[in-house]
């Protein structure tokens, strides 16, 4: 293999994997990982590092893999990220670290994400643990939400010696990692739950079934003796299109469909929660969420169509997931937009009225704006419609917390990245940015932990 060609990685065969929920990408073997790691030039001024949102020392951990010291590679990763096994799997690498890898100029970039995953998985399998905690400071901090933002904030705080408690609304911690991203892309038992157990071992307490704003308020958490609060409540509110027929039976938000399947494990025979997939499913959207919903529906036995109003080039989903989806037989319908969902006499979806689109000038997002082609309406037969059009933050916390300001999309307003308008309250992740990525949410949580540490230290020195 020459320096410019990526070491191939194995995937489950598409014909098999559309019948199961096992992980699609099987990961590198030790030999393959070493081979791939050996391609890295260990650049003195690596162009990959600045594009990683948490600035992992990429050449350093890859060099350890090349040497065969996988544990050391994992230890380096743990210095920068609380969830390497997760990020190695779900980061949009082609837009981040791998985008600027020097080898990409002449050939294929190093498979940084896959190597990260390899080292992290190796450490999990061997039961290696890296978290260190400083001496307890006797100060308590509360974290709202247990998604990537909350997890990384809690981990950072506990290692600084704080007593940390996470309040989570759902019955299981993990946020989108548990309820949104499917098992076949991110194994729950083997990866997510293990990472959360680690957090608990470090001393972080997690109380599930607490909806902050309803069960307790931010004020009451302060009254319970917490000195600062980090809010990592995500962006969970699904967006609908507001077209006629959206409340027909058989129309779901991707959140509902994925939550039933992931959190409630409806794909398993022994789970009580039902899920309904018709024979011909249409997923509206083109992001990671749309791909996940489409591939889930495929595994539940349906013919699946993806309906996207732009072209393949503009798909916001990760490249790997688009490729996987195609291999699994998802049928892509580009330049198509639904106008109305049509129902039968009993109120079940029977089809969609759609219109063809063409691309016009670039809009403020830099992507070319889709414009409807007049007179091109047609009826598309389908019996299930899944809306994957994005999400907004839930207004509950700003609504129930005096002094906590949010903008018109319910995004919490912050200064310096994480300081909210309410004293002692910090925020980060999707609830500040709108839906983004796991690694950005983690970066935000980590940054907020530092700010919280400074805030509490300053308060103490003022008192002294």
């Amino acid at each position, binding site marked *: 293999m020459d320096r410019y060609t990526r070491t191939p990685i194995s995937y489950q065969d598409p014909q098999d994997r559309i019948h199961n929920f096992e992980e699609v990408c099987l990961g590198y073997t030790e030999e393959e990982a070493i081979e791939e790691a050996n391609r890295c030039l260990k650049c003195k001024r690596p162009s990959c590092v600045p594009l990683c949102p948490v600035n992992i020392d990429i050449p350093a951990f890859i060099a350890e893999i090349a040497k065969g010291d996988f544990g050391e590679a994992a230890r380096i990763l743990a210095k920068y990220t609380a969830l390497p096994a997760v990020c190695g799997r779900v980061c949009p690498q082609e837009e981040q670290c791998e985008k600027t890898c020097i080898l990409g100029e002449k050939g294929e970039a190093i498979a940084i994400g896959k190597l990260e995953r390899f080292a992290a998985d190796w450490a999990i399998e061997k039961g290696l643990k890296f978290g260190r905690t400083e001496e307890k400071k006797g100060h308590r901090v509360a974290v709202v939400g247990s998604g990537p933002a909350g997890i990384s904030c809690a981990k950072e705080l506990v290692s600084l010696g704080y007593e940390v408690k996470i309040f989570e609304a759902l*019955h299981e911690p993990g946020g989108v990692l548990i309820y949104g991203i499917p098992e076949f892309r991110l194994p729950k038992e083997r990866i997510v739950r293990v990472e959360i157990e680690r957090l608990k071992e470090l001393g972080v307490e997690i109380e599930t079934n607490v909806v902050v704003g309803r069960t307790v308020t931010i004020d009451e958490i302060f009254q319970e003796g917490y000195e600062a609060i980090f809010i990592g409540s995500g962006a969970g509110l699904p967006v609908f299109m507001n077209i006629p027929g959206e409340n027909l039976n058989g129309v779901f938000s991707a959140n509902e469909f994925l939550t039933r399947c992931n959190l409630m494990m409806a794909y398993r025979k022994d789970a009580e929660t039902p899920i309904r997939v018709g024979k011909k499913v249409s997923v509206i959207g083109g992001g990671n969420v749309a791909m996940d919903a489409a591939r889930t529906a495929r595994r539940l036995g349906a013919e699946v169509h993806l309906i996207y109003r732009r072209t393949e080039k503009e798909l916001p989903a990760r490249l790997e997931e688009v490729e996987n989806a195609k291999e699994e037989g998802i049928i892509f319908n580009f330049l198509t937009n639904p106008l109305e969902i049509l129902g039968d006499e009993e109120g079940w979806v029977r089809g969609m009225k759609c219109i063809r689109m063409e691309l016009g000038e670039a809009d403020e997002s830099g992507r070319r704006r889709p414009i409807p082609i007049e007179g091109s309406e047609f009826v598309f037969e389908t019996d299930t419609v899944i809306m994957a059009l994005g999400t907004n933050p839930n207004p509950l916390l700003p609504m129930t917390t005096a002094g906590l300001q949010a903008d018109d999309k319910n995004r919490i307003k912050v200064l310096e990245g994480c300081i909210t308008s309410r004293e002692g309250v910090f925020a980060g992740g999707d609830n500040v940015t709108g839906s983004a990525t796991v690694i950005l949410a983690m970066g935000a949580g980590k940054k907020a932990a530092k700010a919280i540490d400074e805030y509490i230290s300053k308060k103490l020195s003022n008192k002294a």
Partner: protein
Amino acid sequence: MAIFEILEKKLLAPNIYSMDILAPRVAKAALPGQFIILRVDERGERIPLTICDTKREEGRVTIVVQAVGASTKQLVSKEVGDYIRDFVGPLGKPSAFVNEDIGELRKKKILFAGGGVGTAPIFPQAKWMWERGIDFHIALGARTRDLIILEEEFSKLTDNLYFATDDGSYGFHGFVNAAIEDLVLNEGKEYDLCIIIGPMVMMKFTAMTTKKLGIPSIVSLNPIMVDGTGMCGACRVTVGGETKFACVDGPEFDAHLVDFDEAIRRQNQYREVEIERDHEYCQLVGGLING
């Protein structure tokens, strides 16, 4: 974190049980009109149930549940001393009257209309009013006399307690909406507010009746839910032409603005799957609990 212990269990009517669960945070925060979601075990469904009473000091929350399908049957098979895996709440908005001026409320002529298991959720609301010296009447409907629940509890709260049974075995012979019509048209009763809670169909017809009689009305909707926090949209209902998420915007809405036909249709979305599950469950437990 198994704290959600069953402290008490009572059979109120065939297949209808009340259960007291230890849930201090919920007991402390709950207001009338709100609900909880529970999960019996790690494979369980998230079941929404109205909060029927609370005892703050003891951290108790009372729920009343009718065993209609696999999950509710599993719940009522649990006994005192057993634990419920998950119990989260209070969810939804409290009843609007909680924020109204007490003086104004005392001047209003209020009627509660309950049907079937929807009788129980009226209790916390009626109790809240009773504690504040607000007068109200209650009309309760059931298929037959045996299915009437909480009669004794309600009779302590008001002297104007009316019953309607489909078979005429107790009180008015007919549906509760007909009973209300009778109260207003034949008995000379007047009401400025009607709070209706019960099965969707009962709410639909009662809302039609109160609309005809010109009585402003509130219903407490019970659509299918998953998370109960505004994350999935399963609970969406059309109210006044707008889509609302019942778990965060409700569960109480203006009865005369709700699209009941849509709500009823949406509630049956999983019917086929559920009947199958129910059947499996009954076979599993040897048909011990009849549905």
